[in-house]
């Protein structure tokens, strides 16, 4: 028989496992949001760089996602989806919002990357007989990528950390898991430190490697 005492119990090694699993879920939702959002964002960035009109209209729309707090976007979308008849679980709703949020940031990064490749360079590519897509693939991509990779890593790490906000929809990722454990064990410092260590372990190696890469490239 389960005793009532299990409601409040100290932090046990099992809980570490619980947090680890939740960390994987953080990684899972961020991985998909970053992947899909980046692909989407690259095409949006391309659209932004093509025409003035597109840059203005699309730019204004994307700007909204960068000017409204993510937490508001999440609540808004999660409550809007049922209105138009969409039945979404917290993961799906969170993923959609995070993906759009990512793509809004990546679009700007991508545009900066495309603009970093000078017009003369692109004209040279075209006059060598490359078509539009070849120009993008073999000239703009390699040069632009170098220019904005650090910025993209920054965006990706930001999304990894911002995925913590999906917890308010009830998706049990790292932060939600630590909230659950905090309530049960009443050991806030310990639980938060472990959760922080998990986030740090996910984020720091990438940011460290990106800084090194940036230094190497700038030499």
């Amino acid at each position: 028989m389960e005793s009532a005492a299990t409601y409040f119990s100290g932090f046990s090694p099992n809980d570490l496992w619980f947090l680890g699993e939740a960390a994987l879920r953080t990684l899972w939702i961020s991985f998909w949001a970053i992947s899909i959002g980046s692909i989407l964002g690259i095409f949006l960035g391309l659209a932004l760089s093509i025409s003035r009109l597109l840059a203005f209209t699309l730019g204004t729309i994307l700007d909204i996602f960068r000017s409204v707090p993510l937490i508001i976007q999440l609540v808004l979308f999660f409550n809007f989806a049922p209105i138009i008849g969409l039945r979404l679980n917290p993961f799906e709703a969170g993923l959609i919002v995070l993906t759009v949020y990512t793509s809004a940031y990546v679009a700007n990064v991508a545009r900066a990357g495309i603009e970093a490749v000078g017009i003369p360079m692109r004209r040279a590519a075209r006059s060598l007989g490359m078509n539009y897509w070849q120009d993008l693939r073999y000239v703009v991509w390699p040069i632009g990528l170098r220019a904005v990779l650090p910025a993209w890593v920054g965006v990706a790490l930001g999304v990894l950390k911002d995925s913590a906000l999906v917890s308010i929809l009830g998706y049990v990722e790292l932060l939600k898991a630590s909230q659950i454990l905090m309530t049960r064990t009443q050991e806030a410092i310990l639980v938060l430190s472990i959760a922080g260590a998990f986030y740090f372990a996910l984020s720091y190696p990438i940011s460290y490697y990106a800084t090194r890469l940036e230094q190497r490239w700038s030499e």
Partner: protein
Amino acid sequence: MDYNFHWRPVFKTLPDLLQSAVLTLEVAILSMILGILFGLALSLIRINMTGPLKWFAVSWIELARNTPALLQLFFFGFGLGAFGIHFSPFLIVLMGLTFNNAGYLAENFRGGFNAIPDTQIKASLSLGMNSFQTYTRIIIPQVLRIVYHPMTNQMVWAVLMSSLGMLVGFRELSGETQFFASKTYRIFEYFAVTAVIYYVLVKIILGISRLIANRLFKY
């Protein structure tokens, strides 16, 4: 679609929302001012010192940059609560945002300091200035100019991050919105209006920063 939008309760409480938007701005501005001071100190320590003080500065910076802002807020809210130190929600948000801002700004300042050639320090020292004068009159004014843009971005971030206050019981714009939303069940309508207010706030901040930039950096 069988959902009826009710905007009337939202507009009736609009003055309350706007008042809480002022609170949002207050906490964001205060955290920015403190963040700039701490950030300057942290970056100077990181550049010029060794030993435990440097270790402290580096861990502050890396922790602030590699863990979610929400986790940092929870730490100041619930974590310190475990030691019997309780702060008001306003102070929790202020400390959390200051911690975060200082970490990010310190890295920006470091980039700024590195961009100023060493010879300038030597030149001003040889003109008879002491090192305090050198920093306050020669180096920091130039650094502030370099980091002006990142600082504006950070200010926008501070406003957006302050929305996390609703999760620690702070009645700023988001908290107030949630309070009214759960009172009237018009969740979507309330958060939609709040999103608009945030958007306007961000635009105002960017506009003001552009005006200031035009005045400060004429040359």
